[in-house]
């Protein structure tokens, strides 16, 4: 198991390096000149040259690539400001090292992703299992019809309606906002409740349908028939044996999903005005804040890669055939 994890982490590091390199060179393919953007409206050629030198943009492209890599491991200076290791660049717009901004925004995204995950995984898997076990009954048909509706609505639509009804009119839920967990756990939960539920509602539908389909497949497998032929009770057949086969596709899809969510739930964060990575990415693109865009891409890639390592580890726990 240890060897397995070390291998996967080394592979992950390699992938991140490739992603970083590609993003870095894409950065230079963009039409905007970062120094010009940073310079502002009244820009003399002298100031421009100064900014260019401060930001290290006067060096050749391979040298800039080298400086960036050195910065990641040893830190670097941008003019008078220092960016300590690991330095992912310096935002011309915020006048702040990129990593500081990312770290500042990440907790909101993490809170949103994990809280919603608990709700949509728990709810989706439970509904899907029930529908599979009661296949063909009204319970199956009605939950699947509802989940089709759930999977079809979009967050910006559902979120706005839910906010109007549940928060503004009925006052059942507090106003959606992000308060750091460490400052105010109660406010953290309350403020995120509506974003969680909205995101989970759309996602749970997908997981319910996926779980139902894979559970039905699993119930048709030979080894499940063997377990029935051994005289085990339905409960043992379903919850000791069949679910193991059914959960694998769910874990696969969730691994990808978690990576996406940790890279920023753009729509949810924008709808509920949560200062996370997703909103940061939108703003960075709007401002042509290129180092910030690179940083967001890197953090999203890291999240995706780590989520996949986690999924591989979970596979190994579920299925002994993966361990060898």
């Amino acid at each position, binding site marked *: 198991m240890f060897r397995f994890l070390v291998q996967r982490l080394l592979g992950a590091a390699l992938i991140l390096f490739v992603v970083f390199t590609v993003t870095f060179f894409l950065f230079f393919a963009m039409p905007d000149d970062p120094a010009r953007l940073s310079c502002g409206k009244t820009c003399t050629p002298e100031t421009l040259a100064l900014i260019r030198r401060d930001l290290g943009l006067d060096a050749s492209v391979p040298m800039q690539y080298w400086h960036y890599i050195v910065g990641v491991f040893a830190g670097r200076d941008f003019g008078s400001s220092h960016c300590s290791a690991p330095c992912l660049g310096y935002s011309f717009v915020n006048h702040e090292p990129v990593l500081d901004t990312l770290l500042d925004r990440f907790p909101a995204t993490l809170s949103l992703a994990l809280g919603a995950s608990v709700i949509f995984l728990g709810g989706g898997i439970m509904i899907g299992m029930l529908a599979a076990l009661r296949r063909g009954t009204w319970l199956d048909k009605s939950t699947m019809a509802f989940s089709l509706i759930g999977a079809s609505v979009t967050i910006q639509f559902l979120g706005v309606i839910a906010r109007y009804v549940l928060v503004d009119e009925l006052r059942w839920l507090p106003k959606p906002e992000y308060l750091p967990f460490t400052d105010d756990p109660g406010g953290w939960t309350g403020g995120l409740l509506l974003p969680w539920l909205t995101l989970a509602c759309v996602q749970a539908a997908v997981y319910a349908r996926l779980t139902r389909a894979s559970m039905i497949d699993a119930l048709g497998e030979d080894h499940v028939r*063997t*377990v029935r032929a*051994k*005289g*085990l009770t339905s409960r043992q057949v379903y919850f000791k044996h069949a679910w*193991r086969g059914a959960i694998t596709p769910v874990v696969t899809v969730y691994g990808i999903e978690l990576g996406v969510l940790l890279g920023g739930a753009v729509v949810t964060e924008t709808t509920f005005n949560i200062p996370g990575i997703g909103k940061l990415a939108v703003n960075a693109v709007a401002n042509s804040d290129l180092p910030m865009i690179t940083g967001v891409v890197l953090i999203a890639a890291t999240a995706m890669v780590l989520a996949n390592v986690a999924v591989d580890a979970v596979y190994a726990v579920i299925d002994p055939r993966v361990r060898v």
Partner: protein
Amino acid sequence: MTPPLLAVRDLRVRFATEGGVVKAVDGVSFDVERGRTLGIVGESGSGKSVTNLTLLGLHNPARTTIEGSAVLDGTELVGAPERTLRDLRGQRVSMVFQDPLTALSPYFTVGAQIVETYRRHTGAGRREAKARAVEMLDRVGIPQPERRAREYPHQFSGGMRQRAMIAMALVCDPDLLIADEPTTALDVTVQAQILDLLAELQEQLGTAIILVTHDLGVVADVADDVLVMYAGRAVEFGPVAEVLDTPRHPYTRGLLASVPRLSDALDRPLQPVPGSPPSLLDPPSGCAFHPRCAHAVDGPEAPCRTVLPLLTRAQAASGGSGHAAACHLEAAPGTAAPTDLQGATP
């Protein structure tokens, strides 16, 4: 005469499909005696596996209807509540399936799967059940059973996996073992070992065996009696030596003729039974085999085409051994008074 261990009478199984009703099993009767082996032979789709799965209630109840009777040692299986069947499964009747790789759970160790069966039916403690599992693995000829019990099925070879499957099936010392094509997925050399093992265990434990197969060689090796099925019906039944030596149904003769032999000339072409099995959605009228039968009497009014032949034993021909065939040509007047097996009481 003691009643048979399992007496199946006029078993009918129908599946509701989108194309209509499939008569998967259409009035099959047979007996299984204690400690003996019944071979059930037939092509794919002849109903041989379905017969056995439905006996244990392992079919999809929503789409299946079962009629007739199957009495296991005084207990009626057809229409029995799930609870009754569940208690029988694995304890009094157990099954070995075709492909042990897919039939064993990949998620649990071999030992754990045997322990689970044993504890379900005996209520034995963990330690006792574990010892029993190791004992069974040893008994089916798995070397280092203690260590192998802690391994997963994918770490076993095909033959070893099937041995483990047999160990699991026999752990509760059942009266009847249903082996559904137990050697089909295995190498030829391993096939013989598994068949020998089954015969050996039967001798030691006195378990009756139903061996479902399409391989007449397997039947010749291990079965005492043989039931030949075609299109969901029994077409011939009798002691294995008699059926294979003097087959009385044209289908059985065709099956035997299709088996190549080492003594055949090298350039002798294979002799398959002509045609293909009929659709069970719309089986042929009369004798279901008549479209493929070389001996079928022609003409729109001929019995082969219009009358369903019953499984009858011609006593003069078989000497009262129970050899019976469902063929109009066999039951022709003058041979003997046919006895209807379906009238026999369990």
